[in-house]
């Protein structure tokens, strides 16, 4: 298993073009299914309260008074890897003289390290409320055709459980969460853990070191991430077709494709295949389903390279199903053509050249590319461009032979024209 090694000294990404500063603290941790709700509860509690400001009202007032533009807590789960991210987004004090960076930064550190908890656990009233909120939000979301149909699709398509074992499908585990259990979890993943630190904006090394010496003194620590991002789904020998009935107006059609004997290098190929089918410049899926055949208003394609899954979703009238299935199957077959593929890759490359120019205007492209590359989460657009530029077309065509249709899921919408 590959290990990534870092230390906890901040990475400073200097950029003078913007009037803001971003501080990002990223806590890496190994994810376990039993804690899936603790991840969410912790995120919500740490984003809205602290020991010093124990009510949401008081906490929010402090964000306003300290002129903090954004304080966010979010988590990214990639297979067994979990990243807890705390971010502080503030004006640059060199440009906004009334802003006090020290006050904002000390509030940020205090919010991470002094939550509203005692040795018995997180504040029980707030814990209970967050639990109820999470339960309600999940159930509300599952009434939406998009969330519901996707969960049903992966229920059938994912045999391993990495995708379908999620917060939508394990609600009894939420009931088992306790304030003390959450505190123990917090201590493991945050308090006794070391973050990777990224700072973005027009700030000097001295400013950073003064700020950290005062509010977050260094104690040099090594950070090791066990890079365990991938667990590829295995295609079944014969694809399955599943149909279910719903009360929605629209029907949802999903096509799930997996890769036979998927290897690490196939991840880039899978992404390229997704781009060929559904990028703005090629638009093969939209052209086939909407422009040529008028079957859909919109359609989409997603790929999950960590699990080796590419899926197409289309929302359409129930009577259009058979025609849409044939069109999608034909489209996939039509790709097995060297001349066509060469042409599509050239189109994708030209599109990426424009995107690379466009990225120069984007504040977060630099920052995200930097973090993604450090953590090896994904390659930058430039790296992908270079990879596609030198691609071996024959190798890519042979990869296409290993793309296997695994699941067709159809959620039939029985209600129509009701309003």
């Amino acid at each position, binding site marked *: 298993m590959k290990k990534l090694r870092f230390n906890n000294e901040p990475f400073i990404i200097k950029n003078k073009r913007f009037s803001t500063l971003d501080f990002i603290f990223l806590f890496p941790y190994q994810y376990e299914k039993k804690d899936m709700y603790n991840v969410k509860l912790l995120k919500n509690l740490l984003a809205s309260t602290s020991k010093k400001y124990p009510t949401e009202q008081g906490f929010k*007032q402090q964000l306003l008074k300290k*002129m903090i533009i954004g304080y966010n807590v979010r988590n990214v789960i990639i297979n067994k890897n979990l990243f807890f991210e705390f971010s502080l987004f503030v004006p640059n004090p060199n440009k906004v003289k009334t802003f006090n960076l020290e006050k904002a930064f000390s509030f940020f550190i205090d919010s991470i390290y002094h939550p509203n908890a005692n040795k018995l656990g997180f504040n029980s009233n707030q814990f209970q409320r967050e639990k109820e909120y999470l339960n309600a939000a999940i159930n509300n979301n599952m009434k939406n055709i998009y969330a519901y149909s996707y969960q049903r699709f992966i229920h059938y398509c994912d045999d391993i459980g990495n995708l379908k074992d999620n917060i939508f499908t394990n609600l009894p585990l939420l009931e088992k969460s306790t304030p003390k259990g959450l505190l123990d979890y917090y201590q493991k993943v945050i308090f006794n853990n070391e973050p990777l630190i990224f700072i973005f904006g027009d700030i000097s090394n001295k400013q950073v070191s003064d700020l950290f010496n005062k509010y977050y003194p260094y104690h040099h620590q090594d950070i090791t991430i066990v890079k365990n991002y991938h667990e590829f789904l295995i295609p079944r020998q014969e694809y399955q077709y599943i149909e279910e009935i719903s009360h929605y107006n629209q029907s949802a059609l999903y096509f799930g494709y997996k890769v036979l004997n998927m290897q690490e290098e196939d991840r880039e190929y899978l992404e390229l295949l997704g781009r060929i089918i559904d990028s703005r410049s090629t638009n093969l899926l939209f052209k086939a389903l909407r422009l040529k055949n008028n079957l859909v208003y919109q359609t989409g394609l997603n790929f999950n390279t960590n699990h080796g899954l590419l899926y197409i979703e289309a929302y359409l009238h129930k009577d259009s199903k058979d025609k849409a299935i044939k069109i999608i199957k034909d489209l996939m077959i039509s790709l097995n053509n060297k001349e066509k593929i060469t042409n599509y890759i050239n189109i994708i490359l030209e*599109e990426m050249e424009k995107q690379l120019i466009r990225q120069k205007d984007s504040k977060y492209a630099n920052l995200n590319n930097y973090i993604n590359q450090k953590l090896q989460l994904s390659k930058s657009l430039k790296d992908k461009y270079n990879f596609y530029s030198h691609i071996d077309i024959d190798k890519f065509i042979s990869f296409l032979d290993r793309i296997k249709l695994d699941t067709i899921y159809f959620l039939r919408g029985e209600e129509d024209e009701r309003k």
Partner: protein
Amino acid sequence: MKESKVFKLKNGLTLLFYKDSTKHSMVANIIVKYGGINNEFIVDNQKHRTKDGIAHFLEHLLIEHSIYGNALTHFNTKYINTNGITNSRMTNFYIDTVSDFEDSLIELINIVNIPHFTKEDVATTKYAIIEEIRKNNDNKFRNLNKKTLSCLFKNIKYQNNLGTASTIKSLTYEEVKQCYDLFYQPSNQVIAICGNINIPKLKKLITKAYENLNKEKIVYQIPDFNEPNEIVSKEGYVTEDINEEYVQISYKINISALTNYEQVKLTFYLNYFLENNFDESSDAYRKLIYQKISVHNITYSYYVIDKFIIVEIGTYTNKKEEFVNLINSTIKNKKFNEEFFQIRKNRTIIALLLREENPLDMLLPLVDNVIMYNYYENDKISDIENYTFEDYQNLINKLDFTNYCITEIRKKEVKAPKEGIKTSSK
């Protein structure tokens, strides 16, 4: 270099420019002041009423059947982002590109101004729109919105931008063309452009392009809705398959006594007022949580229809009465806090500074000011600096919150779907 310019051409076309020479992307919007709400007009003293959804239908028709074929495909093959958007007040066609800007702008002008569609195209365009309507019928909040509008308005028969499947199915070429000829006149258009642009050159280019169009001028008026301040019904509901019930209070407030500038200023003040009284820092939110009325936030928003600003405040709750009392008492006993007024004012100044980082963030609020409030100026830091606590209180106190309706999404019992039937095939 950053600069903003506004021009009005002889043909009535308005041009809005924001130049930022540090950027690489250039964006052009052609905005036609024709939206879902415009379904009545007067020509030769005769009043006409059109079917709902024609503005949105025309957006699709012009894009999908332009002189260059399908405009999405046309621009996408040149790696240019493009689309159209229709709301209650306007239809917007845009391109967003890092190359070939001037030629593409002329093409966009031609797409909007040279109608190329046929009777057959009108028929073809209906399919995708009916799918879009079906998609929207699955949106519970859109259905709540329709109900709310029917409770609020007596004479404004506007329910949504898309129309219904049956009105779209019955549309004829003649109906659509009549609306096109009327509403797509240059005097009813605004072109808004931002990025690293040459303003004098573009102004000249656009002027010439419109001269070449040589469009016939048709005189028309939009009749006054004569909408009363009072609402139609106090309560309404829709039933949906939901997990929790949702309650919303919608206030209908006549703002026609305010000047255009005051209306723009009101949007800032209303934000301060709603945030101060209903966001997580507010007493109302604290009560909502402690009295266990809801575990969710209070959502609040506002929009303008005709001479009214509609303020909507809602949450998921099964304690309707308690929620309505909480909101109404908060509105009645308006709280003004000078410290937080100053804080929010400072935050607005920072937000305006940050707008300058993205040209589109500078341009779009200007478009809003022009289209929604007929105010041809950008929001300026100097204006915000002049806002005073007394003025804020006075303006908010002028608003009449007495006309409101309560609308709900109630639970509908729906049978749980059965496990699907699996088949394997090859």
